[in-house]
Structures are given as structure tokens and as C-alpha cells.
């Protein structure tokens, strides 16, 4: 009797579980075979209490109202910080996965990569109370003007809004990179803008007072100076923890440090350089290393006649001449990690381990290679450091001098430097130049290769036939595994040929004041999102209540 009862109970439980499972399985949108997607589910926590306290953040440069408009989103990671305040994306990086569901609760990609479909969550709202619908998704896609816009528009055949919650993108040809690029961590096109509001207030009006579906509403801003955000209680994932977030543009490092020490700031970015020891020794402050991307050296025009860097042995000598552990100690108080690739290890397809071992420091060998290459007495070069890391540049110049490479520093302002790097080889006249660069770019290793290591990129620093052939194959391939293999092969060539000389994985230190919760070391969780140079998402940040 008891056994029979147990059997019935087990059978009932299994039935309920299988029924529950069937309910949890979303109904398919697309017909036919589908590509495998690895999108993590959102962690929804609606039981949160009332938002409290004010979190005051200092950016290390002036604020741009343009960052509040996803339609003009360039790949700059800073813009994403503001996307995570005001807007929300269909899919986006979160601490629990680089691709996670945001506004979309379900996504599909056809096996031929010609169709992609999303289903929105029920009950989504913009800050003005209007519902988020597929019409907004369609309008955002069609009106997007930022980075990769041409690619998105060229590939698109049409957008089909099946109903208010279901949307299907039809492409003219296979668009294998669609899900990667549509991810909010990579481009702005997936951050959904309210059509009704944008059309009403226009481009300038939207930048001055944006409306989105994100966890915070912008309540006021002074262009370049300050933005004030307030918690959006109806945010779908959870009620934000901090009631108000104030972001200030504080360009000066000493001012940011002073602001933290006086309690006027709770979180400050870019706490590197000479004040880092002071930050580390201040008992009232805490900090997170916040690893972003690796530093590396480039040799514009290295493949041209007359360039000393045309000889691989010279490029290798540069690598051997640099004392990376000392550099890390000097620049980052030992926080940084010597690293053997120019691509961040946070990218799943980055070459790591023995395939990308950290460059050796061996002056004797470097001198031998210089002599073998015909430069026993060395030569003069121009050295362009990434601003404002001029101390680091001086250290590298000193290292290089030991093998006869006599560098002359070319100091540029940040925007001027970015402008030159953006022009690739053309940005640097002559071919006796070493450029120090860093680019914590999301989008996987292929994004770094596409920008810096292929001939037809406007920012190309490498043009190698072997890489070109592999890249062509990569672009034509519809096999995800093969593409990843090709990307790794290209990285290997770049490293073996010493086209780029990796230095170390950079910590872009962030500091927090005593008002930030939780106390102790658990605060590091705010930096858990992969490939995120800033600690988003913001709705999880907790501070003590205002006095």
C-alpha cells in the first residue's frame, strides 16, 4: 500500500516536473534548423526593497551628452556605461555571462544564419510608462547610425514584427556575426530606444533628456560636468539598490583622490600612476584592479624598405629588451600581470597559456639579434606612448636604450593619439616609430584582428599575406569552430612574427569610499562582468543611506 502510494507520488512529481519543464521551454519562433546559441538567462530579483542612498561617481574626463543616445553609439566602452544606466539591450554582458538575456527573454538564430528572432519579456516599460514593443526594436535597428551601422543595414533584408513581443530579422545573406555584434557589449544597435519619444523630442532633445528602459532615469545634466540619475522602480530585473547616482566629470587625478578622501566621491575611475601607492595605503578606501586589456607595442610601417623593424630579429630584440616584471612594479605597484598576447584573456577565443607565453627579458640575446640584423650600434626611433602613460613610455625607452634603440618621446594629448591610431599606419609618418597601445575592445579576438591586423582596416598596422589568407577564409566560413581556430592561428602569427610586442595585462584601478556597501572585500563583485572596463550593471550598487 505504502509502496503504491510512493509510486503514485513519484509519478505525479515527474508529471508536474515535466509539465513545468514544458512550460519553461519557450515556444519556438523560427521554423527549420537552428544554430546553437549560448545565451545565459537573466537573474531576476523582484523582491528587492526600496532604493536608498546616493552613489557619487567620478569619471576621469568630461561627460558627453551624446553618450546617452545609443543610436549614435560608437564602439567606445565609455558609452556603454551610460547605456547600462538609462537603456536596456535585448542581450548584453552581465556578471553571469558575456551574452545574457536582457529585454529579450528568448532568441533564435537559424542554422543558415539568415534569420534571427527575439521574444520580448512581457510587461516591459520605458521610463515614461509606455510599453517596450517590437516596433521600438525595429525602429532602433533601422535608425541606428553608430559603429557597424553599414554592416547591419547592408545585411538586413527586412524586419518582421510578428506581434508586440516577437520580432524576426531577415538577412540578405548569412550573418554569422549577428548575435555577437547585436550584443549590447559590442555595439549600440541592441539598446532599445523608444520610437515615440525620440521622434517627439528629436536628436538633441533625446541627448538632453533621454528616456529608456534601463534601471535609472536621467533627471538632470550639465553638459560635460554632471549627470544625475534616479532609480526606475519599474525596472524589470530588480528594483535598483541606490536611489540616486550622480556622475561627475573630474579630469584631474588629484581631485578624484581628494574627493574620495573627503567623502564627496564614492567611486572614482582611473586611479593609476603616482597616486596609486597613496590609494593603496589609505585605510578608509578600497580598490579593485579592474583588468581591462593588455598593453602592446606596434611598429607602423615595419614591412617597408628602410625600416629597421622590417627584420623580425629587431622586433624580437625589442621584446627581449623589456623588463616586464619591473615595468609592472613601477606602473601598477605589482598589480598588473605580464601577458603574452595583445588580446585580452577575457575573450574566449584569445590565445593563452603556452601558445602566448610572456616575453622573456634577455638583454644579451637582444643585443645578439640586433648585431645579426645589422644594427650592432642600434638606431634612433620615435616612441609614442598612450597618453597619459608617459612615465611608462620613459621606462620602456630606458629599457630599449640598453640594446641600442634610442627612443625620442612623442607626447600627444589623448584625442590626438586616438586619432592617429585610428588612421593606422597612415597616422604615423616614417617607419622608425614604436607606438604603445591598449584597446580593451569587446567582440572577441576577431574584433581586435579586424581593426589592427588586416590590410583593409583603416587602422591597420599589419599587412601580412599569410594573415590575409586566413582572414579571408574566416570571413567566408559559416563554421563557428573553424572561425575560432582561424582567429587563434592569426594571433599565433602576430606573436611569432613579433608584429606586436605584448607587455602586460593592465589594471585600470577603480577606488571606492567607505559609503559603498558591502563593507569588507565582497565589494569586488561589482567588477564581475566580463570585458567591462566599468563596473556595470548599476542596479546592483549599494550605498549607505544618505545622512
Amino acid at each position: 500500500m505504502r509502496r503504491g502510494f510512493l509510486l503514485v507520488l513519484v509519478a505525479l512529481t515527474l508529471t508536474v516536473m515535466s509539465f513545468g519543464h514544458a512550460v519553461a521551454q519557450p515556444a519556438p519562433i523560427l521554423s527549420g534548423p537552428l544554430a546553437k546559441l549560448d545565451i545565459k538567462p537573466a537573474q531576476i530579483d523582484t523582491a528587492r526593497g526600496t532604493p536608498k542612498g546616493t552613489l557619487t561617481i567620478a569619471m576621469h574626463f568630461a561627460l558627453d551628452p551624446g553618450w546617452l543616445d545609443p543610436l549614435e553609439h560608437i564602439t567606445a566602452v565609455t558609452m556603454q556605461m551610460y547605456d547600462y544606466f538609462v537603456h536596456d539591450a535585448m542581450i548584453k554582458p552581465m556578471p553571469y555571462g558575456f551574452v545574457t538575456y536582457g529585454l529579450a527573454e528568448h532568441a533564435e538564430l537559424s542554422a543558415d544564419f539568415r534569420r534571427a528572432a527575439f521574444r520580448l519579456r512581457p510587461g516591459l516599460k520605458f521610463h515614461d510608462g509606455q510599453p517596450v514593443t517590437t516596433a521600438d526594436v525595429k525602429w532602433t535597428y533601422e535608425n541606428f547610425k553608430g559603429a557597424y551601422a553599414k554592416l547591419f543595414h547592408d545585411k538586413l533584408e527586412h524586419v518582421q514584427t510578428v506581434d508586440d513581443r516577437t520580432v524576426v530579422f531577415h538577412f540578405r545573406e548569412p550573418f554569422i556575426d549577428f548575435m555577437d555584434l547585436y550584443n549590447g557589449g559590442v555595439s549600440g544597435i541592441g539598446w532599445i530606444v523608444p520610437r515615440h519619444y525620440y521622434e517627439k523630442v528629436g536628436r538633441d532633445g533625446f541627448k538632453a533628456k533621454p528616456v529608456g528602459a534601463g534601471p535609472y532615469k536621467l533627471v538632470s545634466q550639465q553638459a560635460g560636468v554632471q549627470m544625475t540619475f534616479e532609480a526606475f522602480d519599474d525596472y524589470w530585473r530588480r528594483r535598483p539598490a541606490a536611489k540616486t547616482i550622480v556622475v561627475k566629470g573630474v579630469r584631474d587625478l588629484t581631485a578624484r583622490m581628494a574627493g574620495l578622501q573627503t567623502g564627496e566621491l564614492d567611486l572614482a575611475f582611473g586611479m593609476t600612476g603616482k597616486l596609486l601607492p597613496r590609494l593603496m595605503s589609505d585605510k578608509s578606501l578600497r580598490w579593485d584592479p579592474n583588468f581591462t586589456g593588455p598593453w602592446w607595442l606596434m611598429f607602423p610601417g615595419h614591412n617597408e624598405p628602410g625600416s629597421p623593424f622590417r627584420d623580425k630579429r629587431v622586433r624580437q630584440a625589442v621584446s627581449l629588451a623589456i623588463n616586464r616584471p619591473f615595468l609592472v612594479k613601477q606602473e601598477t605597484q605589482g598589480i598588473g600581470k605580464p601577458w603574452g598576447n595583445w588580446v585580452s584573456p577575457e575573450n574566449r577565443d584569445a590565445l593563452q597559456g603556452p601558445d602566448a607565453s610572456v616575453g622573456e627579458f634577455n638583454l644579451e640575446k637582444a643585443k645578439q639579434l640586433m648585431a645579426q640584423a645589422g644594427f650592432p650600434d642600434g638606431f634612433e626611433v620615435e616612441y609614442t606612448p598612450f597618453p597619459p602613460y608617459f612615465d611608462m613610455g620613459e621606462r620602456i625607452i630606458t629599457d630599449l636604450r640598453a640594446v641600442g634603440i634610442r627612443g625620442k618621446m612623442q607626447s600627444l594629448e589623448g584625442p590626438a593619439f586616438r586619432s592617429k591610431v585610428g588612421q593606422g599606419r597612415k597616422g604615423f609618418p616614417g617607419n622608425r616609430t614604436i607606438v604603445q597601445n591598449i584597446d580593451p575592445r569587446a567582440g572577441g579576438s576577431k574584433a581586435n584582428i579586424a581593426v589592427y591586423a588586416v590590410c583593409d582596416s583603416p587602422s591597420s598596422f599589419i599587412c601580412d599575406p599569410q594573415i590575409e589568407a586566413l582572414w579571408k577564409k574566416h570571413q567566408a566560413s559559416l563554421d563557428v569552430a573553424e572561425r575560432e581556430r582561424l582567429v587563434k592561428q592569426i594571433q599565433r602569427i602576430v606573436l611569432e612574427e613579433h608584429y606586436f610586442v605584448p607587455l602586460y595585462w593592465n589594471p585600470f584601478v577603480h577606488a571606492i569610499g567607505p559609503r559603498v556597501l558591502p563593507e569588507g572585500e565582497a565589494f569586488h563583485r561589482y567588477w564581475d562582468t566580463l570585458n567591462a572596463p566599468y563596473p556595470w550593471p548599476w542596479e546592483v550598487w549599494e550605498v549607505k543611506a544618505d545622512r
Partner: protein
Amino acid sequence: MKRYVLVRALYSVVTLWLLVTIIFGLVRLTGDPVAMKAEAGADAAYVAQLRQSWGLDQPLHWQYLGFVGRLLRGDFGHSFEKSLPVRDIYFERLPNSLKLGFAAFLISIVLGVPLGMLSALKVNSVWDNTGKGIALLGLSMPGFFVGLILIIVFGIELRWLPVLGKGSSAFVGSAPSTWLTFWFRDWAHLAMPAFALGWYFSGAMLRITRSGMLDVLGSDYIKLVRLKGVPEAVVVAKHALKNSMIPVLTFAGLNLLIMVNVAVVIEVIFNWPGVGQLLYDALSNRDFPMVQGVVLMSGLMIVLLNFTIDVLYGCVDPRIRLSR
């Protein structure tokens, strides 16, 4: 007099037109702002679209005519970097600069003028040496250094004063209550940047007051006044001070303009949202419309000040207005 004013006004207009033309040309020599904004790897279509939206795809003469045409309508264009109308951003910042500039100006006057007078009246005494020492310190200790010392002492160690920004008071609307709130609230935020900025100018003010007073005190008419038995206080206050103030006031007027428009370093250290920092950001980012707007507004202030001074000179001195 009417002709004199008209001629001066014409000079002012020509000066402004020259300024418009020069600044339009100069900013374009600094490089391509599109290359600055577009990131590494930006596709050609995006770059072309950006260039078009900023009007930089037009021939230079069309850009110039468009710029002048917009200026005549009071439109400075759109900031490339901040994506909003330059006029709106500039006039949001100007009251902050005026507040800081006037406060620093008052500090420079309050410190510089009495100490300069004291130095001149007690020449070669301990007072004079102290005054000269203060003037030397004022001129040789840069504002950023004074600012950092103030931050460490009054901000970090004593925690008496805030170190960042201007506080919450905003200059919005035209109601008198708004004016009062804006000017008299958040003085704690104002104290350190105003002192750091005014400190340098107080040294210069002290020296010019001292030398002016010494000149006047040694003149024949002062000797005559003294011989007539006028009390020393009256000699100083009524006869010497009044006459020695002419160069001081001219100098002070120019100082005020400088403090309002180019207090870049102090604004950066204290994160004061003024016009100086706006110009610095704009120059760093090749934000042509913003640089043009800020420089033109500063130029306009100087031209208007000079025009007013010229007219006042003409009023008080007939030789000036009658000369051809």
C-alpha cells in the same frame, strides 16, 4: 562725440570680424575632428556620415559663410563633442565663471590694495618688506600649487571645505531670488578656488598699488596738501588714493576678464564647471564649434570692455574725442 562713438563702434565690429575669421581658420589648422571622434577600425561609411553631419564635407568657403550666417542669427552651432548647441552649453557655464571670477577679483582687491597702500605708506619698513614678500609669493607660487595646498589642509586634513565642484546652486531663470541663491549659496565650494585664483592676482595688485601710491605720494601736489596742514589720513584717502587708483582699476578690469575666461588650471583642480575648462576640453577634442564659440564670446567681452573704456575716455577727456 557722436562721430567718435561711431568710429569706435566700427573699429569694434572690424575687430570682431577679424576674430571670427582668424578663429575659424586657426581651429581648422589643428587637424581633423572626425579622425578624433571615430575610433580605431571605424568604417568609412560611419566616418563619412560623421563628417557630413558636422558639415565638414562642405568646401571651406561654404563652411565659413555658414558659420558667419549662423553667428549673425546668434547661433554658434552644435558642439561636436557634447552634441548640444554651443550657446546652451556656454551660457550654462558662464555664470559659474562669473561667480568664480568675481569672488577671486574681490579677494585680489581686498588683499592687494590695502597691503599695497600699507607698503607704500610705510616704505622700507617691516610692513613694506612683508608686503613685498607677499607680492613675491603671490607672483611666484602658481595657483595650482596654492590650490593643492588648500585642498590638503582645508579639504583632506581639516575637512572644513569641499574640494570638488560648485555645489548644488544653479543659475536658472531670471527671478531675483534665483540670483541671490546662486551668488550667496555654496560659498564653502567657492572659498578655495576663489582664493587660489585671486592669490596670484593679489600679488600683482599689491605691487601696482604700491608703486602707484609711491608715485603719487612723492608728487608736488601731495607735498602742497601736506604743507597746508591737511591731516595725513585725509591726504592719503582723499588725494593720494584716488589718483593712484587709475592704473589699478584699469589693471583690475583686465584681470577680471582673465579670471572669468581663462581660469583653466584652477577650474580643473577644483572641478569647477566654468568656461576655462570648457575651452580646454574643446581644444583637446578639436571641437571646432565650441572653441569658436568660447573664443568669440571672450573676444566679445574684451571688445565691449575696450569700447566702453574708449567711450568713457572720450567723455572725460575732450582731447581724445576731438583728435582725428
